[in-house]
C-alpha cells in the first residue's frame, strides 16, 4: 500500500542553520506516528514543511500521491491534512462554536450544516458545555481541545498534532491521550504527534521517528526506540549512553 504521506530527503535551511537535513519518512494510512526529539531538533520545521507554511529547499513531499512540496497551506488542508499548533492559535474573539464552524466551512458553504457538524465535534471533544465561551477565555487544555475540534472539522485524513499535550497537568494529559486514541479509532484518522515527553508518545504511538539536530536518527517501534543507542545519547548525553 502506498504511504499516505511521504517525505523524501527534505532539507530546510535558515541561513547557516540546517533545521532539517535530508529527512525521509513515510506515514501509512491508519498509523499513529510519534515524532520526537530534543528542543530545536527540527520537529516543528518539518511540520511546517508538510503543511505548506514553509517549503523545503531540497527534497519532495507527497500526500496521497500528490506532490505538495510547494503547495500553499489552504490547499494542503483541502487535500486532507490538518494540524494544531505548538503555541495555541484559536480564534480568540470568536466563540468555541464559531471556531469549529470556520473549520467545518471547508467542506460546505452552508453555515447551518457547518454548525451541526461543529456541535457534534464539540461534544466529541467534550467541549459541548463551553461552546458559547470566547476562545480566549478557555483554559489551555480546552484551547488545545478546541484546536483539535477545529482541525477535525475540516475532515482530515491526516492529523498533525504539534505538542498537543505540553503544558497540561497529568490528568489533562491522560484525557488528551484518550482523545487522540478516540480520534484514531472512532474517526479513522491517521495521526502524527510531535512531543518531547517520552511517557506520552511511547504508549500511544505505533511507530516513533526521532530527530536530533535536524537529522533523523531513528525510526521504529517504541519498544526498539527506547533501547536505541543514538536516541539514548541524544536524550541523556553521550557519557550516560557509553556506560
Amino acid at each position, binding site marked *: 500500500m502506498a504511504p499516505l504521506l511521504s517525505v523524501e530527503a527534505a532539507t530546510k535551511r535558515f541561513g547557516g542553520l540546517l533545521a532539517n537535513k535530508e529527512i525521509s519518512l513515510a506515514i501509512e494510512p491508519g498509523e499513529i506516528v510519534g515524532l520526537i526529539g530534543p528542543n530545536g531538533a527540527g520537529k516543528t520545521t518539518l511540520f511546517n514543511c508538510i503543511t505548506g507554511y514553509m517549503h523545503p529547499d531540497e527534497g519532495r513531499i507527497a500526500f496521497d500521491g500528490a506532490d505538495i512540496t510547494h503547495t*500553499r497551506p489552504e490547499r494542503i488542508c483541502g487535500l486532507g491534512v490538518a494540524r494544531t499548533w505548538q503555541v495555541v492559535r484559536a480564534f480568540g474573539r470568536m466563540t468555541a462554536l464559531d471556531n469549529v464552524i*470556520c473549520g467545518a466551512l471547508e467542506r460546505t458553504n452552508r453555515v447551518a450544516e457547518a454548525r451541526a457538524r461543529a456541535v457534534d465535534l464539540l461534544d466529541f471533544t467534550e467541549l459541548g458545555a463551553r461552546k458559547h465561551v470566547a476562545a480566549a477565555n478557555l483554559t489551555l487544555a480546552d484551547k488545545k481541545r478546541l484546536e483539535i475540534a477545529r482541525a477535525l472539522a475540516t475532515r482530515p485524513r491526516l492529523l498533525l498534532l504539534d505538542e498537543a499535550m505540553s503544558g497540561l497537568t497529568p490528568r489533562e494529559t491522560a484525557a488528551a491521550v484518550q482523545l487522540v486514541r478516540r480520534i484514531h479509532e472512532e474517526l479513522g484518522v491517521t495521526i502524527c504527534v510531535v512531543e518531547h515527553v517520552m511517557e506520552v508518545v511511547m504508549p500511544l504511538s505505533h511507530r516513533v521517528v526521532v530527530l536530533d539536530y535536524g537529522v533523523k536518527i531513528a525510526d521504529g517501534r517504541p519498544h526498539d526506540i527506547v533501547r536505541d543507542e543514538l536516541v539514548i545519547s541524544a536524550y541523556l548525553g553521550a557519557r550516560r549512553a557509553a556506560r
Partner: protein
Amino acid sequence: MGRLALAVGVVAAIVYPIPLQLQGTTYYQTVGFLVLINAMLGLGWNVIGGWAGQFDFGPQVFFGVGASTAWLGLPAAVAVAVVVCALLTYPLTRLRGHYFAIATVAIWMIAQPIGATWEFIGGSQGLFIPVKARASVAASALSLQFSGPTKALGYYYSALALFALTLALMALVERSKLGYYFRAIRDDQEAAEGIGIDSRLYKVLARSITAAVFAAAGVLYAFWALSVFPEQVLELNWSTLPIMATVVGGIGRLWGPVLGAVILIPIAQIMSTTLGTGPLAGRGIDLIVYGLIIVLIAAFRPTGLLSLPWGRWFRRRRPATPAPAP
C-alpha cells in the same frame, strides 16, 4: 429591548422629515441624508476594517470611482469600483498590519493626481450631471434625480432605502461563510490558512464589498451634488468620518457604524448652525468635539458604545422577589 429600540429607530427614520417638509424646512432632511450616507460608508468599512481586521484608510478611492462613474447608473458604477478594487487590492494582500494600512493610503494619494488630471472623468473641471425633468415620483426615484422643494426629502428617502439595503446585505454577509472567514483571518491569519481559508482571496473579497458600498454611496452623492470634483469626492473625510463612526459605535458589530454616525454626524451640523454667527464660528470646534469623543471612547470603552451593557441598564424592572430562605 433590542427590538423596541429598532422599531423606534425605524419609525423615527421614516416619519421625522414629514412634519418638517410640511412646515417648509429642508435643512434637517439634508442632515439626515449625511447621517445615512456616513452610516452606510461605516457599514462598508466595517467589513474590511471590523470583520476582516485589515485597516483600510483609502476606501474613499472607491467613493470617488462611484461618483465619477455615476452617469453609468448605480449597478454599473458599483461593478466598476469592485473590479478596480479587486485589481488594486490583490497585490496588497501580501502586506499586513501597518504596511497594509500605509499601502491603502498610498493608493489614495496616487488616485488624487489621476483624478485631477484625467479628462475622461472630468479632470480638474469636474463632471456635471444634467437635471432632467421627470414625469413622476417613481421616475425620479429610479433615476435618483430630485429637484425643487422636494430635493432634500427625495434624497433623504433614497439614502434611507440604500442604507437599509446595505444594512440587510451586511447582516447576510455577517451570518454567511464570508463573515466567518473574515473574522477568522482577523483573529489569526496562519491558523485560518491551516483550516483551508485562502487569506488573500478573502481579503480581496472583504475589501471589494467595502468598495461596492463606497461606490454606491458615491453615486448617490454625485446625483445629490449634481457635480463631481475629484478633490471633493476623494476627500479624506469620506473615510475618516465613517471610520470614526464605526469605532465610536462598535467596531466589528453590525449596528456599530449606524449608532456612531447618528451620534457624530449631527454634531458638526449643529455646531455650524448654533455657532454660525458667534465668535467661535469656523474654528473647527466640531473637530475638537470629535477628538474628545474619540479620546473618551479609546480610554474607557475601546470596543465601542454598543458593547456597553445596555440590556442590563434598560431591562424592565421586575417586581422584587424575596430572597429564597436559606
